[in-house]
């Protein structure tokens, strides 16, 4: 079954670039409200965020919403005074929008981190430079290796009676010693890796970069749809300009504004739609058998 997560990493990256770009740079309250709702929906449906993550997002939302009116006193509609400082409606609306933006972006970024696994990140960056792709790949291998070795060193140092974790200073010194052994072990044996590279032709020709990902027609189609929806949203945002200070002035429900909001909604739920239709098609094809 082909789902959103299996698209070419470029298509995935383009999608998040579009969505995050619109979320972060539009500052249109309607759009941001849609963004928050759809990103929460997506997080719940895909299981990206657990209870703690939702709680964290809620706290971020509250703090961000309150912070702006407390510090910024622009705007003419004063709601009340706090310590002789005006608390204005304009600043509050701006704060709420910013909070929506921040929270929605956090949800989307969490999703991005889940979808873009290490090999996809590597693929994306590797396109710029085959050598860099290799360096990244080597580094990731070493990160795994270091984890395993760190554990082994801790064990053998402990069994030699050299590892105390009685107090903080001992603990830090113990860790420093383990780290020191880890560095020596890995650096000294690195020569074998270097020789293995050399004996397999490193530096003999201009390097190419092999990737298991291919670009298919539906990747291109997907990117085209993304771009089109983003363009429509951007035009909509441009035509329904929002002014916060000194007086709120926004025409969110103009034809352009509605078109932009609609396009953005479609864009936001695009992955859910793809996965949903695929699931339905799968059911149908199963029932035919």
């Amino acid at each position: 079954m082909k789902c959103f997560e299996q698209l070419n990493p470029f298509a995935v990256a383009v999608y998040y670039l579009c969505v995050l770009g619109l979320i972060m740079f539009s500052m249109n309250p309607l759009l941001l409200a849609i963004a928050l709702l759809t990103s929460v929906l997506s997080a719940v449906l895909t299981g990206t965020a657990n209870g703690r993550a939702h709680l964290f997002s809620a706290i971020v939302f509250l703090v961000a919403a309150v912070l702006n009116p407390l510090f910024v006193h622009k705007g003419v509609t004063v709601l009340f005074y706090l310590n002789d400082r005006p608390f204005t409606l304009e600043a509050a609306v701006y704060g709420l929008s910013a909070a929506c933006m921040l929270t929605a972006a956090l949800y989307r970024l969490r999703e991005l981190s889940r979808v873009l696994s290490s090999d996809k990140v590597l693929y994306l960056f590797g396109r710029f430079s085959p050598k860099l792709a290799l360096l990244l790949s080597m580094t990731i291998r070493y990160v795994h290796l270091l984890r395993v070795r760190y554990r082994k060193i801790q064990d053998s140092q402990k069994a030699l009676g050299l590892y105390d974790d009685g107090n903080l200073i001992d603990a830090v010194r113990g860790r420093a010693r383990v780290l020191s052994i880890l560095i020596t072990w890995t650096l000294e044996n690195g020569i074998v890796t270097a020789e293995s590279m050399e004996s397999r032709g490193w530096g003999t020709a201009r390097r190419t970069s092999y990737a298991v990902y291919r670009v298919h027609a539906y990747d291109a189609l997907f990117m085209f749809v993304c771009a089109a929806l983003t363009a429509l949203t951007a035009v909509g945002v441009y035509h329904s300009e929002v002014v916060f200070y000194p007086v709120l002035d926004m025409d969110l429900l103009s034809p352009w504004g509605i078109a932009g909001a609609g396009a953005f909604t479609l864009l936001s739920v695009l992955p859910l739609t793809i996965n949903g239709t695929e699931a339905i098609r799968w059911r149908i094809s199963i029932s035919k058998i």
Partner: protein
Amino acid sequence: MIVIQNARLRTVLRYIIPFVLIPAAVILSAVVFEGQRYLIVSLGIAALALLLFMTGFERKNIGSRRMVITAIMTALAVFGRFIPLFKPITAICVMTAVYLGAQAGFLCGALSVLISNIWFGQGPWTPFQMLAFGLIGLFAGYLSRFLLKHSLLLILYGVLSGAAYSLIMDVWTVLWYAGGFEWKLYLSAILSAVPFTALYAVSNVVFLLLLKKPVGNKLQRIKIKYGV
């Protein structure tokens, strides 16, 4: 696709980016956006700077041993973020730069951020962080002669880079949140971050002092043994 396999294109990019694209981006931001879209512009500049460096890296012939050592040091910096009580990322980047040169320092800083963010969360901050840590490594590499000779300078570098990192990242936080630069917000952000900045600077110094001799000796030995 933007596969830059073509050597000539890479060479062209190397000159276009610093001399045409970056100035153009700055002018564009001033004229078109009237200074409204700092974030887009700064993000673009950070990405371009990284791209510039990557094209430079691809052009060079790098020995396998240098590749391996750089990968190991970068992995150590990434791994350092996982150890409780230990955040030696800056110290490791600086040590790498001092012993292996500015390029290795930049790579160690930038790539360790990119890779560790796979676990700690990628975001629009990634290019900034990459650039920030990359530059910490890069300058340490340029200053390696002085940093190696005087421990005091090394400590100073640790403090300054820690503080500079926090100050720059706070600018970015404010830009993102407020859409433009607000001095008050910035000051409050800096003030609220003072404990973290201080802790960060202190830990930089502690780890630089702690790692300087052992890691320095190891790298020195490896350099001789490998003939790097």
